[in-house]
């Protein structure tokens, strides 16, 4: 095939580039991340940070979640930039509300946010209280038996 750099070739090139860019944008805005919210007593650098007694957490404008100690819940979000708002009452019966912005790494399926750490260091960089999370490996090994693949398309005929 002979490639001629005429107008239509250029147009097509531009179109392909635009579509590819658009696909990338879609990747950014459509990628789903699971954010685990954790309210557990945690030890960071030998220093123990206690779980909060009662805390309400809202990510973006999703429904607010309530946590008691040792609670863990998750929210599913798309895009990378998000805000988290936690409101709790401290020992002095003071209502404290912290709002933080955070950015999720693009290829991360799942991250965990430690609410006590965030409450303790509201101004610290996000790496202090947000880290990536991987499912424990035993969950995968729990299903050893091989799945039988049914390639017979007649099955689909009856049950459509």
């Amino acid at each position, binding site marked *: 095939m002979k490639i001629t750099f005429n*107008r*239509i070739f250029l*147009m*097509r090139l531009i*179109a392909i580039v635009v579509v590819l860019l658009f696909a990338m944008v879609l990747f950014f805005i459509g990628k789903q991340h699971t954010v685990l919210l954790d309210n557990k007593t945690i030890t960071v650098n030998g220093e123990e940070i206690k779980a909060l007694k009662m805390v309400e957490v809202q990510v973006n404008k999703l429904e607010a979640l309530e946590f008691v100690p040792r609670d863990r819940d998750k929210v599913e979000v798309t895009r990378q930039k998000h805000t988290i708002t936690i409101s709790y009452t401290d020992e002095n019966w003071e209502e404290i509300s912290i709002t933080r912005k955070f950015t999720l790494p693009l290829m991360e399926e799942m991250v965990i946010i430690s609410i006590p750490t965030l409450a303790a260091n509201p101004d610290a960089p996000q790496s202090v209280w947000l880290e990536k999370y991987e499912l424990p490996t035993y969950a995968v090994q729990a299903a050893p038996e091989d799945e039988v693949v049914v390639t017979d398309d007649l099955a689909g005929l009856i049950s459509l």
Partner: protein
Amino acid sequence: MVLSPFIAIGLLEYSSLVASFRLFATTLAVTVTFMVMDVRVTIKFERIEYMNEKKTPLLEMKHISKDFFGNQVLTDVNFTLRPGEILGLVGENGAGKSTLMKILFGMDEIHQTGGFGGEVLINGESVLFETPIDALAAGIGMVHQEFSLLPDFTATENILLNREPLKYTALSELFGERLNVLDREKMTEISEKAIKRLAVTLDPEMMVSQMPVGHKQFTEIARELSKEATDITEGIKLLVLDEPTAVLSEQEADSLLKAMRLLAESGIAIIFITHRLQEIIDVCDTIMVMRDGKIIKTVPAEGVVIPEIARWMVGREVKTVSHKRAVQDTAEREVLLKLQNLWVDMPGEVVRNVDLDVYKGEIIGIGGMAGQGKLGIPNGAMGLFPAGGKIFFEGKEIPLNSPRNFLDAGMAFVSEDRRGVGLLLDESLEWNVSFTAMQVQDKYLKKYLGGLFKWRDQKAIEETTEKYVKQMEIRCTSTKQKAKELSGGNQQKVCLAKAFAVEPKLLFVSEPTRGIDIGAKSLVLQALRKYNEELGTTIVMVSSELEELRSICDRIAIVSDGKVLGILPASTESAEFGLLMVGQHSELVDGGSL
């Protein structure tokens, strides 16, 4: 108006005249000399004027020659065509008209068979068209005999097929200009303009499938006319009409002729190919008669009469009519086959209403122009195409549309379509020769259990095949060879052998020599002749070559427009047949419905 070659010839004569005058002048008085000089000067002057006026003819074909594998079909054809001139091209089938047009259009067929000799000039420039598309781009249009129209498109859509004016859409930037939208208004405008030039009434929005035939023809012509000059193509300058009136009614034909005159007046040159000679005389400026690949005559149309053209067409007084059987008194002979009101629906070949008596023991020829129905007669009688009417064989009526009854009655048919109907191309010669006889007459079979099992008798088949291979001089490696590997002539012989194996009382032979070389031709004809003489088999032979019919037949029926126009003894002069073919008949005609 006079055609240029004539001028040239005229000039030659004049100049020799002039030379002799000059010779004279040296011995005669000075005044005489002056006079002669004067004449000479005027001639010269005239010539210059002429050359100025028609410096470059629109189309000039010089020394065109063409052969198909050694078979010469065109020899040294020369002619010129000026803008606005209508040239009538006539000739019998196979005279070379269509080959000439194919050369003009640069058809693939020509290039694949080794090109052609000579030169084609357009506006004085030598051109060589690679494809018909090139020819179209140079402003040459052709209207074919078969319509190349799309039935479910309107006239406008057909006229502008693949040349539609477009409206810009943004998507075309991306996907090419084929995604531009058709500009319907402009399309109608262009087609209306083209139709107007023809001065006919034709609804541009009418679907082609619903048009009468004449309108289809006009649509085709309008398509050519609508080709306007663009930067890559030129507007239509030359129009070739290949038998445009063949399918038209008289009225339609008349309006077509009028339209042609109109076009010519607007400067378009037309090459008009037709078998209706009166039309040629009516509409053409010049008539060019071809025969055997040569131009026989090029004359101004004025003052020419039909018999003259017919004579030119059929031409040579044939010396080699190989036999002259005494023409017997036909009234007393037994009628073997009788066709009554036969109609046949065969594509491109309509038989409307044929009445024909075939006498026992004779060879009767059926001739006529292409597409007039001569091929339809045997095909319909045999039942290969839907037919109606009545056939009587030996006094009994034979049901139509049933090949089996036809064969059972003792008739056989050698089809003109060798590859399609005549042969099992993928099977051996043995099968081809023996099949029909085996199926119809239970020949070459061994019977077991009282005829319950009919086993193919390989030995009998081989023997018969070998017999015919010898008898007909079929050139093959063995009787096991596949039919498709044989040459055309040998295939034809196999077809005949197949028919002979049935030992019919009456044999239909359709175009037995089409597409085979001269040697094979005479062998085939001899075989037919011999078969007729030795076994008394009646033969009905259909051929488009009149001379061939005349050389072998007793009587010849001429078919035109799906009807038998007349039957003449084979010994009648060619010119009479020529007249009959073009619809003029004399008193010699002795039968057929007129």
